[in-house]
């Protein structure tokens, strides 16, 4: 019975093969594409799903996990298998690549010299001298030639970009790093949302899926606003935030969209902005007879009118409409506000005034006449919160991949060997080279190198006043 490779060995070989990798890539691609065509669960509303698919179809899609492809167990398994395939393929091939880096092939053995595609043999008169000349030429070309001795012979070895041999492993390692970051985030990351009005602070995130998440600090909003372009479209949303720990303010920042607040590994993004519908302050001119006094009303406090008379905001509607004699609130934007003021005086009965700033009207039994000057609405800021511990692995992976790709595509591993040999026509200089990419270009530069060597050899021979060496050129 023939010797069988062990089962484990065969499994390893299969998983490490490029074919497996390609098949996994294809399956992943097809499945990922399916996820873009089939409506996915978290982002699509439940009733949109029921409208899009017939009930049996929807049940089947849910059961197979096709409605949440990217989080389905088999998708995660596919990604894991891809990771395993990358690891096995790298482990399988790395030792050979490392041997090239750690133990470069320096001495060109006869069988090597016989089969190397790019080589030349030049007839020379003085072998050792010629080797020296070649060494100088290689050095001038920017390479760092080393002398290799063995068997009583000296040869030259020069190489460039040795580490580019490992480029492929760098790229695949970076992929694994990114995958690892993704896995860490899949398990430990969380997102949330916060709504704050100026002055408000919080130490926890809004409950998501019923889970309330406390923050390791208190976040206070000190202000928020929106700036518009001349044509009215939003230009900027900003919020001033302060981080408070143990009673001390540790961090203050004004954030805008694309520029979050980062603290304790948690990021707060400017995400939304809107009107709460509450008013912050109202400025009015109060007239009684000939006297006019400007007052600022803040909800919850009373403003002094004169003597013992005070006024307060009893009710505020930012945008009202009347229907069937009832007043309703249409929206939270201060389009058509209505303010109910309550004027109190211990000596008299309470009187009331309804103010409609948009039309500058007043109704009610108050003796004072109020004229609307200005008001400040209270806005809220919507902050997106996220904690992604794995992102550092992802960014490190991206940078590593960039390095790996530059090495893989643009750095060429070149090797040169020079040796003095005995050919049938006398002493000769053998020069060989190999480049792992872009061979046509290196064919040309090798030819140029040979020409340079020939020229230098000619000069040497001139110096020795010996006729110039004949050339045996072997293609």
């Amino acid at each position, binding site marked *: 019975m023939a010797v069988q490779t062990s089962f484990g060995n065969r499994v390893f070989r299969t998983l490490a093969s490029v074919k497996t990798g390609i098949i996994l890539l*294809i399956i992943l691609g097809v499945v990922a594409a399916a996820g873009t*065509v089939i409506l996915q669960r978290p982002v699509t509303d439940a009733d949109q799903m029921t409208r899009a698919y017939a009930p049996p179809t929807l049940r089947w899609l849910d059961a197979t996990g096709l409605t949440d492809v990217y989080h389905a167990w088999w998708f995660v398994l596919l990604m894991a298998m891809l990771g395993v395939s990358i690891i096995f393929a790298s482990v399988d091939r790395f030792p050979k690549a490392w041997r090239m880096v750690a133990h470069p092939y320096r001495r060109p053995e006869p069988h090597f010299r016989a089969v190397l595609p790019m080589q030349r043999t030049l007839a020379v008169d003085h072998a050792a001298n010629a080797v020296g000349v070649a060494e100088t030429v290689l050095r001038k070309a920017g390479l760092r030639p080393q002398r290799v001795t063995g068997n009583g012979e000296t040869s030259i070895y020069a190489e460039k970009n040795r580490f580019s041999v490992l480029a492929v492993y760098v790229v695949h390692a970076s992929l694994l790093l990114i995958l690892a970051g*993704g896995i860490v985030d899949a398990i430990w990351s969380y997102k949330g949302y916060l709504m704050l009005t100026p002055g408000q602070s919080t130490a926890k995130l809004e409950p998501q899926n019923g889970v309330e998440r406390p923050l390791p600090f208190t976040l206070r909003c000190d202000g928020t606003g929106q700036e518009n372009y001349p044509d009215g*479209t939003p230009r900027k949303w900003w919020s001033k935030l302060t981080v408070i720990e143990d009673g001390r303010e540790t961090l203050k920042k004004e954030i805008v969209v694309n520029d979050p607040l980062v603290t304790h590994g948690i990021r707060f993004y400017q*995400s939304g902005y809107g009107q709460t519908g509450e008013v912050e302050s109202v400025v009015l001119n109060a007239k009684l007879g000939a006297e006019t006094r400007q007052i600022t009303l803040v909800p919850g406090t009373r403003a002094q009118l004169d003597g013992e008379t005070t006024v307060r905001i009893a009710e505020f509607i930012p945008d009202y409409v009347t229907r069937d004699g009832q007043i309703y609130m249409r929206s939270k934007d201060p389009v058509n506000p209505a303010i109910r003021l309550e004027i109190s005086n211990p000596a008299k009965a309470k009187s009331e005034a309804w103010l409609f700033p948009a039309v500058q009207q007043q109704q009610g039994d108050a003796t004072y006449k109020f004229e609307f000057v200005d008001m400040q609405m209270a806005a809220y800021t919507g902050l*997106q919160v996220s904690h992604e511990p794995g992102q550092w692995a992802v960014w490190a992976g991206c940078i590593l*991949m960039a390095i790996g790709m530059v090495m893989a*595509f643009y750095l060429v591993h070149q090797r040169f060997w020079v040796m003095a040999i005995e050919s049938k026509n006398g002493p000769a200089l053998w020069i060989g080279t190999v480049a792992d990419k872009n061979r*046509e270009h290196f064919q040309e530069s090798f030819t140029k190198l040979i020409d340079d060597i020939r020229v230098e050899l000619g000069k040497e021979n001139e110096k020795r006043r010996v006729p110039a060496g004949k050339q045996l050129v072997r293609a």
Partner: protein
Amino acid sequence: MSRATAKIEQHPAASSSNGLLVAVGLGIAFLTFVAFLSVVKQGNLFNESNLLYLSLIFYGGASALYIGFGVTGVDRYVKFASIATTIGFVANTLAVGHRWYIAGRPPFANIYEMLLSFVWTLAALTLLAERKYKVKVIGTVTMPLAVTSVILMQLLPSTVRPLVPALQSTWLQIHVTLAMLAYAACALSFALAMMFLIQDKMKTETFLASTSGLVTMVYLGILTRFEKWGGLSVVAWDAQHKEEISISKGVKLMVTIPDLGWVFLLVLLASAAPLGIYAWAKWRKQENFFTVANRAVFISIVLQIIALGAFVLRARNAAYTSLDAEGFYPTALAASPFILCGLITGIFASLLYLMLYWRRSDLERLLPTADGLDRITYKTIGIAFPLLTAMIAAGAYWANRTWGSYWSWDPKETWAAITWLVYAGYLHMRITRGWRGRRAAYFAILGFVVVMFTFFGVTYLLPGLHAYS
């Protein structure tokens, strides 16, 4: 097959070949002069739209000369076309520069600006391919495309609009620049792979089948908008605000242009006909189907042009009823950029096939060797792939800063990743499995098809966060 029917090329006498050159030269001079006169009154000579118009004139001249080459085979046309392209490119660069200067940011924020950048990239690639790769006929493809794009741009709102908060980010500029460069490199690799197939002696019939297949897919895509009773749905357009009309957030109002669906259905059948004839002839092992199939291609081109005309006439400035709301709603050509792109692509591909059919021997003479093209395709993908990777990484970083998540499996993100996987597959098959020649070329073509889907298909057919372009 094609050789039997091709005529022996007689190079036309020098005097008649000068005729086209003189005509084009005069045309350029005349148009430039007229434009200069009308513009000099306004005082502001060097603004973006004037410079763009100037580049349009020169690109138009270049296109005419390249197409002239396509029809007659005279080499001199290519030389002068190259000069015209260069002048047009200079004007285009000035136009882009002017817009950049006025807006304070590179031109990437809306579809008008993307087309402007695209046209610039087309001209740059044409000149690069001619000078560096010595492929002198690539202008036959790129210049007519550039001219069509500039004409299309005139339909779109071109005012420099300030950026909404989410787009105000340096990382966005980086991401979009990388995307343009990556897609341009992929497009170039596609063109090189197609040229390889020509030089690799792939039969003209196969090209016929593929072109017919492509046009059929385009019309099938358009016919997803086919409504009951033969109408075609397009998006409604608010001419006053120069934007689409929405029913609610993210849901656009569609109006139905009556009968246009039948027109497109007819053209679909005509475009599928050559493919059908090809398939039938292969099955029946008939050899003399080729002339019939080519006649079908002519007919389909004529019908495609008619369909384009019909669409332009009916979708230009008219109001139609909607299935979603009561009353009449207007639409404009600016509301249907993808349908227009599809129609023009179909006509374009069909005309390119015709040029191959008529001028194959000339092309084979002017293009580099198959082996050379195979290597250049690989080198181009060696540029495209790192650019794609950097584009995805920059996009992820931008998304992280704006939406708090570097990867949300958004359709555009997912398809960008799939594109990356396809090109990774190409590299693996080539480097590790030694795939060369035909198989590598097919892979490169597949890669570009996926790029096109990522760029157009996702926006047109699938919704998502990437709502900006």
